[in-house]
């Protein structure tokens, strides 16, 4: 807690900064981050699949811990009533809090992603090395944005079962792939429903699109990548409005 730093912030940023600074589980979150970094540093390049799995899942889990925890902290009766009585308290506080969380997420992401990339084996001599890294860079950038939007949306909307909801949302395409034909859903319906899920698959194909993929692939990838942020922004706004206007006071 740095009270002298907080009181020097512009007044609009004091509430989100105080919410982040007074969240109680910073110790366990930083320990989890440190454990990820140590784990990644200890893995050699022959276990590339494990490295990639950690690279893909560890940062969103850490971000979920931070954002879910801070929004739960905000919903506490004693905290929320202190924040809510200020003139101007509302949606803007929520968006500023998400902005600060995004900056924090980036700080967490960089060392983990850096270590994971350092441990990745080089592609075979037959593959163009700059091309492989360019492909990885496009995917990791898109994946970082998508995972942040997914985590932010779930953290704002959910009050309990945050991790389960996020896993369920991310698993929608796989569920549709298996359950769609079994339930007799038409292909168009299945494809339409898949647009509601986080576009990790579209992110993996984004480099192909940029290199001049087919019109059909381009249409699907671009549509999914553009509609998902709009969907998340709408859901986050609804969640923040519910939190600010008609909250359920909780004090766990």
């Amino acid at each position, binding site marked *: *807690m740095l*009270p002298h730093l*907080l*009181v020097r912030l512009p*007044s609009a940023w*004091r*509430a989100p900064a*105080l919410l982040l*600074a*007074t969240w*109680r589980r910073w110790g366990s979150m930083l320990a989890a981050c440190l454990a990820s970094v140590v784990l990644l540093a200890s893995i050699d390049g022959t276990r590339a699949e494990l490295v990639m799995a950690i690279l893909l899942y560890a940062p969103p889990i850490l971000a979920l811990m931070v954002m879910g925890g801070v929004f739960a*902290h905000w919903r*506490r*009766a*004693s*905290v929320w*009533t*202190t*924040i*809510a*009585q*200020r*003139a*101007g*308290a*509302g949606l803007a506080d929520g968006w500023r809090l998400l902005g600060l969380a995004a900056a924090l997420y980036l700080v967490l992401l960089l060392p983990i992603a850096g270590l994971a990339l350092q441990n990745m084996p080089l592609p075979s001599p037959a593959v163009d090395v700059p091309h492989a890294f360019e492909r990885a860079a496009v995917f990791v950038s898109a994946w970082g944005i998508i995972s942040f939007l997914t985590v932010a949306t779930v953290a704002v909307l959910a009050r309990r079962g945050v991790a389960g909801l996020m896993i369920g949302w991310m698993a929608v395409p796989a569920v549709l792939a298996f359950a769609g034909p079994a339930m007799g859903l038409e292909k168009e319906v299945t494809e339409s429903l898949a647009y509601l899920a986080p576009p990790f698959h579209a992110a993996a194909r984004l480099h192909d699109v940029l290199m001049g993929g087919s019109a059909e692939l381009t249409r699907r990838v671009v549509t999914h990548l553009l509609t998902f942020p709009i969907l998340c922004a709408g859901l986050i706004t609804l969640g923040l409005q519910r939190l600010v*206007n*008609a*909250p359920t*006071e909780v*004090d766990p």
Partner: protein
Amino acid sequence: MDTLVEARGVQHAIGTRGILTGLALSIARREVVGVAGPNGAGKSTLGRLLLGFLSPTSGTITIGGTDPMTYRQSHGVGFLHEDGGRGWEHATPRALLALHVDDPGALTRDPICRTLGIATHLDRRVATLSKGQWRACQLAMVLLPRTAFLLLDEPEAGLDPGAQGRLHEVIAMRAAAGAAILVLSHHLDSLATVAQRIHLLVRGGFQDQIDPTEMSLAALRLRYMRGVDAVLANQLMRGRAA
């Protein structure tokens, strides 16, 4: 009278259970109004409705001519609620006060802070404050922004007699400066000191309106007990008849 807060026919129910049953209340600027009542009478629900945290099932509430939520978000309100500082254990009073004032540097010079005597606690963690010290800091958070409407829920809880005297002093200062103040409490002696009128709330309805300047504290207590007992006895009779 320059009325700031106006409630008419306010009812609130949770499911089929009526919490408030048709309240009418007005509070003018420079006025301190008390609402007294036993536990479960509906005082806290009335407070949440006036803050826009809940919407009434029927009836209307306006503050400054608009609904409570819009008023709170555009003008701010001072809301003192009872808690032990949970959630803010790692914060300091200075950081919390900085949420509510434009110039945190001027805190120690403010007459309300000086009256409440909180200057020495400003940079301590909330977890290290006594209940009374935290209450004084909460009062400062509520009173310093100079909002036009103040709602104080059990403000004397945890305060020793000296601190209660300072509480009455700062409430009078804010009322004199033009605030409309509602105090929810079952401490009749405290209400008799600060409020110009006291409404007796029992089982969700106002049963009596009392001018505390017209009677002694003993007479006030007697009238409170009679008001509460009359409602409870009436409900008991109706229950038996049914």
